[in-house]
C-alpha cells in the first residue's frame, strides 16, 4: 500500500508528456515519469522515494513498439524486457536480458525503466553500449538523438524534464559479444558481477554491472588491446578503482571474479552470443 496520495497522468503524445512534467515541476509538484512501475511502486510503498504525481508514458503508442528498418532495430522505451527477449531480431541480447529480474517481472519491466531507474544495476544498458546504440529522447526541442555512449555516464544524463523515447540498435555489428552474470545466492537476485564483453576489429568493450555503485564500461582500441601482454590484468586494472564492497561481496572478491571471467572470455571459453 502506498501511504499517501498520488496523482496519475497518462498523456498520449510526447509533447503532452513533456509539457505535463514541465507544468508540474513549475507548480512545485514532485513528479516522476512512469513506465513498467516495478521499481517505482516498490520504492513509493517503502518510502524510499516520494512522489506527488506519476506520468505514465504507456499512452504514447510508438514507445511500446519495436520497429525494424535496414539499419536499426528501433525499440520504444516502454517495451517490456520479455517482448525484446522474444523478438527475432534481438536474439543476440536474449541471454543478457533474460537474467534480469524474473520472468513475471519482465512482462512489466521496461527497457527504459531499467536504464533510467534509480537502482544502481541498469544491466540492460551494457549490451546497448557494447553495440554502440543510439538513443532518442524528448525535451523542450522535441525529439533528439545521440549515441548512447555520449549520454550515459553511470546513468543516463538527460536535460531536466526530458525522458527516454527510443533506442536504436544497429542491425549489422561485426565481432562477438560475451556475457556472464554472477549472483550471491540464487539466479533471481541482483548481480555481484554482470560482465558484458564485445570484441570487434576496431575496439574491445567491457561493461560491468553490480561491480561498482553504478554501471561502468571501458572502450579499448583493438590495436592497443592486441599489444597488451596481460589483457586480464590490464582490463581488471581499468576497473579496480570502481569496485565496491557490500553485503553481497567484498571488493577483492569482485575483482577476483572479474579477472577470472575475463580470462575465460579471452581464453576462448565462450562462443559469440
Amino acid at each position, binding site marked *: *500500500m502506498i501511504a499517501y*496520495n*498520488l*496523482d496519475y497522468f497518462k498523456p498520449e503524445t510526447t509533447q503532452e508528456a513533456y509539457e505535463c512534467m514541465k507544468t508540474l515541476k513549475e507548480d512545485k509538484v514532485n513528479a516522476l515519469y512512469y513506465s513498467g512501475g*516495478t521499481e517505482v511502486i516498490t520504492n513509493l510503498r*517503502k518510502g524510499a522515494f516520494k512522489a506527488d504525481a506519476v506520468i505514465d508514458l*504507456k499512452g504514447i503508442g510508438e514507445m511500446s513498439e519495436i520497429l525494424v528498418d535496414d539499419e536499426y532495430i528501433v525499440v520504444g522505451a516502454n517495451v517490456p524486457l520479455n517482448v525484446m527477449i522474444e523478438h527475432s531480431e534481438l536474439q543476440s541480447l536474449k541471454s543478457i536480458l533474460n537474467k534480469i529480474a524474473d*520472468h513475471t*517481472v519482465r512482462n512489466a519491466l521496461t527497457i527504459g525503466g531499467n536504464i533510467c531507474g534509480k537502482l544502481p544495476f541498469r544491466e540492460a544498458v551494457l549490451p546497448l553500449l557494447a553495440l554502440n546504440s543510439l538513443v532518442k529522447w524528448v525535451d523542450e526541442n522535441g525529439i533528439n538523438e545521440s549515441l548512447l555512449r555520449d549520454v550515459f555516464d553511470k546513468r543516463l544524463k538527460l536535460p531536466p524534464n526530458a525522458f527516454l523515447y527510443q533506442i536504436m540498435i544497429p542491425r549489422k555489428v561485426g565481432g562477438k559479444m560475451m556475457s556472464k552474470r554472477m549472483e550471491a545466492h540464487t539466479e*533471481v537476485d541482483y548481480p555481484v558481477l554482470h560482465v558484458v564483453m564485445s570484441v570487434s576489429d576496431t575496439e574491445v568493450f567491457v561493461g560491468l554491472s553490480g561491480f561498482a555503485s553504478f554501471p561502468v564500461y571501458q572502450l579499448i582500441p583493438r590495436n592497443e588491446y592486441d599489444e597488451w601482454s596481460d589483457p586480464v590484468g590490464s582490463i581488471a586494472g581499468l576497473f579496480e578503482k570502481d569496485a565496491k564492497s557490500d553485503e553481497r561481496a567484498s571488493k577483492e572478491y569482485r575483482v577476483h571474479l572479474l579477472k577470472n571471467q575475463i580470462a575465460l572470455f579471452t581464453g576462448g571459453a565462450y562462443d559469440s552470443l
Partner: protein
Amino acid sequence: MIHYSGNVSIQLNVNREIHEVVVMPQDTLLRVLREKIGYTGPKAGCENGDCGACTVLMDGKPVKACLMLAVEAVGKEVLTVEGLEDTEIQKAFISEGGFQCGFCTAGFLMNAFALLETNPDADEAEKKDWLSANLCRCTGYEGIEKALTLAQKNVQEKHSNKR
C-alpha cells in the same frame, strides 16, 4: 490526457466480468482486487515483487499485481485464480498435491496456466524460467513440478485430439 486524482470511479474487467470500483490512483491492483472487488486469491506476500503470490494475468500475461496500479488495468482483461475453475492446471494441482500451506498456490497456478496457454510444449528450461518467479516457503516444489508435468501432458493430449 487521462488524469486521475483523489477518489475516482473506474471499470475493471476481472474474470470476464466488469466491476465498477472507486479507487485512488495510488492503490495497487492487488489491493483493489482483494479489498474492493473481493478476489482474495491473489495474496499479499512480500508486496515487493519477489514472492509471486500476487500473480494475475493481464491480457494473458502473468504480472505481479503488487507492482501495478489499479488504474493501469483499465481497458485490460485481468484474470485471477478464481477464473481458473475446471482448468487442467487446477485439477493437476489437486491430484498431485501441488501445495502445502497454500499461500503461494494462486501465484504458481496463474503462472503455470499462462505458460501452458502460451506454449503447451514448453521444455524444462522454459518451465524453470517461468516458475522461478514464484517462491514456496514450504519448499513444496516437487508437488508443484509434478502438477505442471501432469497438466502439460493433459493439455497436450487435448490439443492432439483437436487436430
